[in-house]
């Protein structure tokens, strides 16, 4: 259907639209008009992606200044889903177009998705590799420009990738026909035409209207440098499923070093020096050239050959890029010696048997005292290594990944003074005796990684199903949104029932608080919740625990108490483990049990794989039980450092952040069951702390609106009675027509728009009246606020 928001014609690929989708689009448009950033929360399963795409594409097509859309999603399946949604939308737009010219315009609209080489490679040998890193390295060996030149000059001397070669013959910017291509389409096209899908997408990036890829391509500075450099400034950036965006930012700037990694880095350095010796003997001029280049400056050295994407430096301040590489590491052998010293220094640091936490500044000071390594050359470490590797034409760079990490670490530590911390943990766990040191270089401030994005692009949209409380994100990421909105869910019937269980049937308060979590009464009450719900809920139940550790201990206790045997009578039990393969087998069987009526319980962990990416729609999740509040492990030194930083830098209190983080994870977990308006499910929060107003108010609006006073403080048996009743009611055959209430047709939209206009008019009139009244009341001669303030001061 087609309708107008203000003057913008929107083409929406369905006949009906949800009211919240309409509201969402209106707010999105406001953001784009204002060229600002926004935070939007819309319940899962209400068609967020399609409304986003539909509005932005309409916007792009309507205004002559074609703003590119960069759509970031979290996982490959989600990217694929968004692409197929976009494809559907464009098909619909083409069908809708009235004139021939418009049709052509729609057909010229191009959208592509980018993912790693591993997913896109069609080379017969390389694509068989299992590890992403190996695929990357082997691909680079066959496609980097030095090899290509050699191969072209002297065919057969080196192995080249035919698919990549074939791509080179094509005219750039016209590597694939216009239109929307899903990842599968690109692969198919590549196979048919014998061209490399990965480089097709990479090279088409500047020419397409929509790019869909994962968060890292934009946030991780090492990757962003390569991939997202050419994106124009007026592009619209969308982060979907962005509830964890701060963690992604932090991870992208944090480096962990271990002993084996350092050893491997040491070996790589030796290899480098051997290679240098060899080159010196055979082709000394090469090194000379490089030296000359480095003298000229860094800027020229890194020309825009995208195949040579090996290691880019993390975000360097702009002035640094213009500087030349300092003299003491310009010569290859000097640089290698420099690296050797640095790696050795790190190794000695690792020998310490007590925990060390220090700022980058004190680390650098210590480094200087011991090894006389200055800060400036350290900064260029990553850059210099990249240049050297390029000069030496080293193949199989994946073997150098540890060294690459060390270099990145060196650059980061020398670049940032604030917002980072170095933590050395000699032991893995509290009571381990064998040292297994890890050197964490942690980023404490998510704003650092995302800052370039906000600065560069005029409109950044952050959206998710669970992103409450909304004001936390602007605070943490340091930006000012123009629109900040959360939408309720309109439903014709209450499709889900959130229940907060605060005590067991025996009236003992239940909580996963550390002091009481292993109390037998609490464990038993948690168990009885599971048993009772497994009796009354059909098909699938998903239960979430705060951590693996707690899950293990409580499941062991349940086994001893015979609670598991009781559950077994009604449902099968599956458990999520840290092992991905094991979990996926468990999930598969869980689904089977849900389908054939046996019923199953899945025990999993908040923040785990299941909680983040797996949907439990319809019969796969009729109830989700949150056992306890999923707080982070507060004894972790990294978390402590981060909390401290947040307090000092942004005035976010520790408890506030911890509460926010726990509740957003809880919301994320319970949100797994409701994936659409025809779906239904129970949401059980089993912890007395959920009943507190400060926790409840942090839940997303659409969950909060269904938590009534009666359901916010229940004992187990009361909750069961309510659940039973709910399940009977919801199982009645739904026959009501949703149109008009939670589904709008075109007329409904127009009606709503007319009403809105009326209200706006009224409000304006009222405002005018008020203003007049005010004028009358205060008249002239009143003192304005500022003057009053000054008077106070004078006194």
């Amino acid at each position, binding site marked *: 259907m087609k309708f107008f928001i203000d003057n913008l014609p929107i083409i929406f690929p369905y006949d009906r639209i949800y009211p919240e989708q309409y509201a969402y689009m209106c707010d999105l448009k406001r953001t784009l008009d204002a060229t600002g950033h926004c935070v939007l929360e819309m319940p899962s399963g209400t068609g967020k992606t399609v409304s986003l795409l539909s509005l932005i594409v309409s916007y792009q097509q309507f205004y002559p200044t074609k703003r590119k859309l960069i759509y970031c999603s979290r996982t490959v399946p989600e990217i694929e889903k968004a692409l197929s949604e976009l494809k559907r939308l464009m098909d619909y737009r083409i069908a809708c177009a009235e004139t021939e010219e418009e049709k052509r315009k729609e057909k010229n609209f191009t959208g592509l998705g980018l993912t790693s080489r591993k997913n896109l490679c069609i080379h017969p040998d390389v694509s068989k590799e299992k590890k992403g890193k190996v695929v990357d390295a082997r691909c680079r060996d066959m496609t980097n420009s030095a090899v290509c030149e050699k191969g072209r000059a002297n065919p057969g001397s080196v192995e080249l990738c035919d698919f990549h070669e074939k791509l080179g013959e094509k005219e750039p910017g016209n590597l694939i026909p216009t239109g929307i291509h899903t990842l599968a389409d690109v692969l198919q096209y590549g196979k048919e035409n014998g061209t490399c899908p990965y480089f097709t997408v990479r090279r088409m990036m500047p020419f397409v209207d929509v790019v869909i890829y994962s968060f890292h391509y934009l946030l991780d500075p090492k990757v962003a440098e390569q991939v997202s450099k050419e994106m124009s400034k007026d592009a619209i950036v969308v982060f979907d499923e962005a509830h964890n965006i701060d963690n992604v930012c932090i991870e992208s700037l944090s480096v962990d070093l271990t002993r084996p990694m350092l050893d491997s880095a040491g070996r790589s350095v030796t290899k480098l020096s051997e290679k240098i010796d060899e080159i010196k003997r055979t082709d000394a001029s090469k090194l000379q050239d490089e030296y000359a280049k480095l003298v000229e400056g860094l800027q020229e050295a890194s020309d825009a050959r995208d195949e040579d994407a090996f290691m880019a430096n993390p975000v360097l301040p702009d002035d640094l890029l213009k500087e030349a590489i300092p003299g003491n590491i310009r010569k290859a052998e000097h640089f290698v010696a420099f690296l050797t010293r640095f790696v050795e220094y790190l190794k000695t640091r690792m020998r310490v048997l007590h925990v060390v936490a220090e700022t980058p500044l004190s680390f650098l000071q210590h480094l200087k005292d011991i090894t006389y390594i200055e800060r400036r050359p350290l900064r260029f470490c990553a850059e210099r290594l990249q240049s050297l590797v390029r000069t030496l034409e080293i193949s199989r760079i994946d073997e150098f990944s540890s060294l690459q990490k060390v270099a990145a670490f060196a650059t980061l530590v020398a670049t940032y003074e604030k917002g980072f911390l170095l933590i050395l943990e000699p032991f893995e766990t509290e009571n381990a005796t064998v040292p297994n040191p890890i050197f964490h270089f942690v980023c404490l401030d998510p704003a650092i990684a995302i800052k370039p994005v906000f600065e560069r692009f005029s409109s950044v949209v952050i959206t998710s199903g669970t992103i409450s409380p909304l004001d936390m994100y602007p605070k943490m990421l340091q930006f000012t949104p123009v629109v900040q909105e959360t939408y309720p869910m309109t439903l014709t019937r209450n499709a889900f029932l959130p229940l907060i269980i605060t005590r067991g049937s025996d009236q003992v308060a239940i909580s996963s608080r550390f002091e009481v979590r292993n109390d037998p009464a609490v464990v038993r009450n948690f168990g009885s919740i599971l048993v009772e719900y497994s*009796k*009354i*809920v*059909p*098909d699938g139940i998903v239960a979430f625990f705060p951590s693996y550790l707690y899950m293990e201990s409580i499941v062991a206790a349940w086994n001893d108490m015979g609670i598991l045997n009781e559950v077994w*009578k*009604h*449902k099968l039990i599956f458990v999520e483990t840290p092992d991905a393969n094991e979990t996926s087998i468990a999930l598969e069987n869980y689904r089977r049990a*849900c*389908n*054939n*009526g*046996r*019923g199953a319980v899945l025990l999993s962990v908040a923040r785990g794989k299941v909680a983040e990416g797996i949907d439990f729609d*319809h*019969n796969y999740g*009729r109830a989700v039980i949150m056992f306890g509040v999923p707080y982070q492990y507060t004894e972790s030194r990294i978390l402590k450092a981060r909390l401290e930083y947040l307090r000092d830098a942004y005035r976010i209190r520790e408890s506030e952040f911890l509460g926010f983080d726990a509740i957003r994870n809880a919301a994320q977990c319970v949100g797994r069951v409701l994936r659409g308006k025809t779906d239904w499910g129970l949401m059980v929060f089993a912890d007395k702390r959920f009943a507190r107003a400060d926790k409840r108010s942090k839940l997303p609006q659409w969950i909060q609106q269904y938590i009534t006073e009666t359901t916010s403080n229940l004992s187990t*048996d009361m909750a069961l*009675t*309510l659940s*039973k*009743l709910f*399940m*009977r*009611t*919801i*199982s*009645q*055959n739904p026959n009501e027509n949703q149109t008009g209430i939670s589904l709008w047709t075109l007329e409904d939209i127009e009606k709503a728009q007319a009403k809105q206009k009326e209200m706006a008019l009224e409000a304006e009139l009222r405002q005018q009246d008020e203003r007049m009244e005010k004028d009358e009341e205060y008249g002239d001669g009143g003192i304005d606020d500022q003057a009053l303030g000054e008077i106070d001061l004078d006194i």
Partner: protein
Amino acid sequence: MPPRQADDYADESDSDIDILEDSGNRSKKGKGKAIDRSKKDKGKGKSSEQPYAWEASYTRSWDTVQEDEAGSLTTAVADLLARNRRRRLLAPADAIRRTIIRHLIIILDLSLSMLDRDMRPTRFDLSLEYAREFIVEWFDQNPLGQIGLVGMRAGLGERLSEMSGNPQDVLKAISERHRLEPAGEPSLQNAIEMARGSMGHLPTHSSREILIIFGSLTTVDPGNILETLERCVQDRIRVSVVALAAEMKVCREFCDKTGGQFGVAMNEGHFKDLLFELIPPPAQRALSRAAGAGANKPDADLMMMGFPVRLPDTSPPALCVCHSELKSEGFLCPRCSAKVCDVPTDCDICGLMIVSSPHLARSYHHLFPVKPYQAVTTLEEGSAFAKSCHACARSFPDAPLASSTATAEGMSPIGRYRCPDCQHDFCTECDVFIHDVVHCCPGCGK
């Protein structure tokens, strides 16, 4: 017996009324039913005490009714009653082909979950009671049909009674409560396979139906239940489920794919409504669609039936072929002259279907239910209006009822319902009585 039976049903089917008129209803039930019922009631009262009060949620019966101007609840109650009754009559009345000869297997859940007391006295007792009423009513409206019983207990399917056309045989199988004591987990697959096995030989002109009364939320199956579903679809067995707890995906799928009905009982009254909705013969639509174009014959199939000779009580005793008992009364098969005890049945010797003509007539009668009466909305339609109900001769109210709730669809504000054929007016009570119990319009005799 039929009218009394139905009278009883009309009394209790509505849960709202149950709450309000509890005491009155109880005594009526005792009177209306045979004595054995009241005895059983007492027995139940002893064996299973009422659930604790706090386990139940509030029955906010006062919220559903509103007082009229005079402060009386009677009009509101009458409205509720009437609306519920009318709703059932609003079903589409287009011509559909219905099955006369029905074969139904009732699968009773006898698992431990049936001991749950969320339906009083327990799910188990209640479903047994309703099953009995259902069987009686079913045979009343489908005299040519046959019912078999299967129980699901401890992971097995148990045959409680063979397929039989005699209501007494079927009722006897579930009359003894202690033999059906619930145990273990149910197995849908086993029970359905057993039911399917006993219907495999049936001729194509008869319907094959399975009704599952399901209280559990799990099923322990030896194999893949989805294969059983495929086979049911192939055999054109219609599976209907009345669930007592919540919607299970498999159950819903069974009903959707085989063309049956799925319902979840909200409360006792709704449970009964759901069951009794399955009594009228199902339309044959789904069946012919499943059979494809080849079987899509518009005209009726001919089938062989025999009308037996009835032997008087004074005839010399002889062995019957069905039970091998020495009896004097019975029926003689017109083809092979074998002696059978009861009709309708299939002759054990030659396989001929033996029916008595009243059975056939009764079935035929139920194939054409009384047309739904139209609600008369206004008095100003020109024609003369009868002063009183054509059936009970009670006079109609002159002015429309003041209550605003009466404007619901299919409701007449002045309490008049008119037969589309004979144009006689009837009051609300008679309308319901005629459609639910009499199955014959007093005005036109159809």
